[in-house]
């Protein structure tokens, strides 16, 4: 019994570090995601195409860094007070909040990414991923990292419930 609880807490700690690393990597990848490209634009048919340098840059940077910082705080808290019961409850609450925030951030980023990938012909939002290929690839990688991170936080929240179900 004691052994099982200790094993579970070690497992929790490892998953938390993995989640932190994933959010940090997602933040760094999204933050460094920038691509400038010369795009030929035809203003009139008679004139030769005009080369315009366009820059794609992400605006979700600050949000992801915020998530990473928040998870770092959570991690420090659990390292300090894993034995204290009140802090344990606080961590459950913050974890639930994190799950909500990470999932909504992922939803927002993937929805905008989908518009970038496919475009929306109704309102003339053209797809941009055929031009900014490197940007979109990098964005996808960051998105999958942060999806994994949010799954890790989901695991952290649900793992104690399984032990409860076994022991009771």
């Amino acid at each position: 019994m004691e052994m099982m609880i200790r094993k579970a807490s070690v497992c929790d700690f490892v998953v938390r570090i993995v989640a932190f690393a994933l959010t940090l990597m997602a933040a760094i990848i999204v933050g460094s995601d920038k691509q400038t490209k010369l795009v030929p634009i035809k203003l009139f048919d008679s004139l030769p195409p005009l080369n315009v340098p366009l820059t794609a840059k992400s605006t979700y940077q600050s949000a992801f860094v915020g998530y990473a910082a928040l998870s770092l705080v959570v991690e420090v808290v659990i390292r300090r007070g894993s034995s204290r019961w009140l802090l344990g409850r606080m961590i459950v609450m913050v974890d639930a909040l994190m799950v909500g925030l990470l999932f909504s951030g992922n939803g927002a980023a993937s929805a905008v990414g989908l518009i970038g990938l496919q475009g929306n012909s109704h309102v003339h939002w053209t797809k941009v991923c055929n031009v900014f290929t490197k940007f979109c690839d990098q964005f996808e990688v960051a998105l999958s990292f942060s999806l994994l991170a949010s799954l890790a936080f989901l695991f952290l929240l649900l793992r104690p419930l399984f032990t409860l179900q076994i022991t009771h």
Partner: protein
Amino acid sequence: MASTTDPELKSSEPPPPPPPAATADAVDYFKIDVILRVLLFASSLAAIIVIVTSQQTEIVPLLTGGFARRPAKFKYFVAAFSVSGLYSIITTLASISVIQKPQLKLKFLIQFIFWDTLILGIIASATGAAGGVAYVGLKGNDHVSWNKICNVYDKFCRHIAASLAVALFGSVVTLLLIWFSAKALHHRVPK
């Protein structure tokens, strides 16, 4: 905890057989739970209705020279909130039935936290996705020449904004449900 309140309870009323303090606390919690679940149902229903009635067709001569269809369908949003509405009906009934049968409380609390967390993930991601697209619609994005559309589709955008506000409220309610369940579980699990 129970021993301090026991004499007062015995003096005022005939003593009930189960431990009084614990059940009183848990019954109170399950009442809050039922109220929050009804709120979740109301907010998801309102979000669906508002977003489904948001269709607007507008003659936009500059863009297409004809009728423009409604800009986005928000299918995922509607699907997610249908799921949460259905889920909230079922769990409201379950929560009411748990008030009748207090011996099942621990099992139901565990199940409630589990499923509430999954529903929180679903509706938070739906709210985030709709919010992200709505933000692009509101502000546009000059870098990739996505024009803002909310100056054209004003009614549509007002509907989306209202629906998003209600959806955000629903997400917060789900978060509160998880917090209250965790608190009740913390009271009930012997440590």
